């Protein structure tokens, strides 16, 4: 990796001031340090955030909502009783992230702002990787793990943060802090789709860092289900998080968000519409999964993700209703 100058920040104020152009914030290091070793990212300055005490911790309860500060390690999220009981969609997903060592190191902010894992990007060809004669490396090359939605565009990688998916399903808001002060946005508004290699996949302003994520009060049921290659140390292939509120037995409002199918966490409005005003049964959940798959345009090698998409949505909905029919 290239040499850089190092600032060990001890306060948010200090971190924001130190994050001058050409700087990179460093938390657990499980993404940034590997990118620096591979010369994918070579900041002039690294500002270390994981020792900022005012950035770590979880507060609140299920009735009023929970705030998780950006520097909170994933292992601490797993140790939170309120997250486990009120937000199982987030707890389950966190428990599946990477490995015990990485969950001890990695922070919530680092997970939400990790860079895509596309192998062309990680080999230095950018988020919109093209050959010198203009061919798109992912469209023409090995795209088995790439997107199946938004594939008419040029960003064909999949969004890497599995925690963004349950957080968006739960309607969480992110508070950013930067040179111009604080602002709060929906978690889904943190991301955008780049159209060229010079554009960022993040909708943050220069010098801004994540301060906290606030999840609103838990009113209904939520759950996640993921399909993956390996039990450990891998990202999901496709994962769904659902958050449902009920009127009696029927779903009055639904949020269905999917990982692994688009360059942003994919909100499936079609699945949300399909399950609304229904009682959750295996049949109604399957219909929602089918509805979600309409409009998917897989690439040459990832058609398998369409069936996975249907399955994870079906199973996430059934999990929220306590029916794990596939385990019977």
């Amino acid at each position, binding site marked *: 990796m290239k040499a850089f100058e*190092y*600032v060990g920040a001890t306060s948010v104020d200090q971190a924001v001031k*130190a994050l001058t152009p050409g700087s990179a914030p460093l938390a657990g290091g*499980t993404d940034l*340090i590997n990118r620096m070793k591979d010369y994918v990212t070579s900041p002039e300055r690294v500002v*270390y955030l994981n020792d900022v005490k005012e950035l770590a911790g979880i507060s609140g309860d299920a009735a009023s909502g929970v705030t998780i500060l950006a520097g909170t390690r994933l292992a601490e999220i797993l140790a939170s009783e309120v997250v486990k009981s009120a937000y199982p969609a987030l707890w389950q997903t966190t428990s599946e992230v990477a*490995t*015990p*060592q*990485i969950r001890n190191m990695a922070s919530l902010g680092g997970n939400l702002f990790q860079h895509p894992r596309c192998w062309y990007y990680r080999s230095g060809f950018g988020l919109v990787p093209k050959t010198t004669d203009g061919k798109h490396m992912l469209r023409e090359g090995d795209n088995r793990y790439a997107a199946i939605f938004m594939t008419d565009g040029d960003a064909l990688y999949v969004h890497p943060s599995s925690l963004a998916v349950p957080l968006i399903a739960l309607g969480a808001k992110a508070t950013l802090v930067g040179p111009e002060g604080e602002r709060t946005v929906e978690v889904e508004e943190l991301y955008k789709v780049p159209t060229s290699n010079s554009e960022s996949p993040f909708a943050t302003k220069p010098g801004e860092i994540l301060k906290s994520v606030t999840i609103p009060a838990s009113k209904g049921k939520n759950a996640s289900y993921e399909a993956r290659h390996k039990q450990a140390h891998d990202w999901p292939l496709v994962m769904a998080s659902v958050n449902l509120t009920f009127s009696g037995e029927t779903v009055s409002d639904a949020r269905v968000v999917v990982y692994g199918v688009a360059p942003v966490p994919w909100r499936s409005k079609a699945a949300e519409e399909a399950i609304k005003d229904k009682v959750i049964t295996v049949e109604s959940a399957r219909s929602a999964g089918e509805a979600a798959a309409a409009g998917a345009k897989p690439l040459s090698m990832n058609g398998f993700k369409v069936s996975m998409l249907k399955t994870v949505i079906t199973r996430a909905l059934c999990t929220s209703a306590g029916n794990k029919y596939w385990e019977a």
Partner: protein
Amino acid sequence: MRDNVTDPNAASRRDFLRGSSVAAATAVLTQTAQVGMDEAAAEALATQQISAQSGTISVTLQVNGKALKTEIEPRSTLLDVLRHRLDVTGPKRVCDRGSCGACTVILDGQAVYSCTTLAISSQGKTIRTLESFDTGEGGVPHAFHQNDGLMCGYCTPGFVTACQALLEKNPNPTLEEVKKGLDGNICRCGTYVGVIQAALDAAKAIKV
């Protein structure tokens, strides 16, 4: 090897390798210094009282209960400093990308990958490697020995460290908890059966 750990300046075969790399490193550092920081940035820094560190930095790391002094760069990983500067060679450099677990150390009580941890960020924290573990009959290394929990042995230091960290947090793990707790380590020989049994046996031995 133990003696070298207590005295990082003691001669070893690593000193020979280190001597040749220092010359190369110095050349790089001089270049970096010449590029320097532009005046505006320097002024901004001064007014905001932010101290940025670059070049060669003297640090003291708390390794296995001893304060070890050495010189590093901001980009030096904890793993490379332990192995190449301090002769603490228990943690192994295998993937160097936080994927295999061979470099696992216990930092402030938590198992972490030392290959993706900066040494400069590890100042003031308690670093424990398997050199400090109990090698007697009640310890984790003995349980690995008794269960043949290794074949080529290169992943073993990482597994022993991850196992130690697991048992410190959860002294009475179930089989599932052992599997989940050792998820972050890979054995390419595939001797997981022995490793998992070693972890379960070590849990019993430690309790006695």
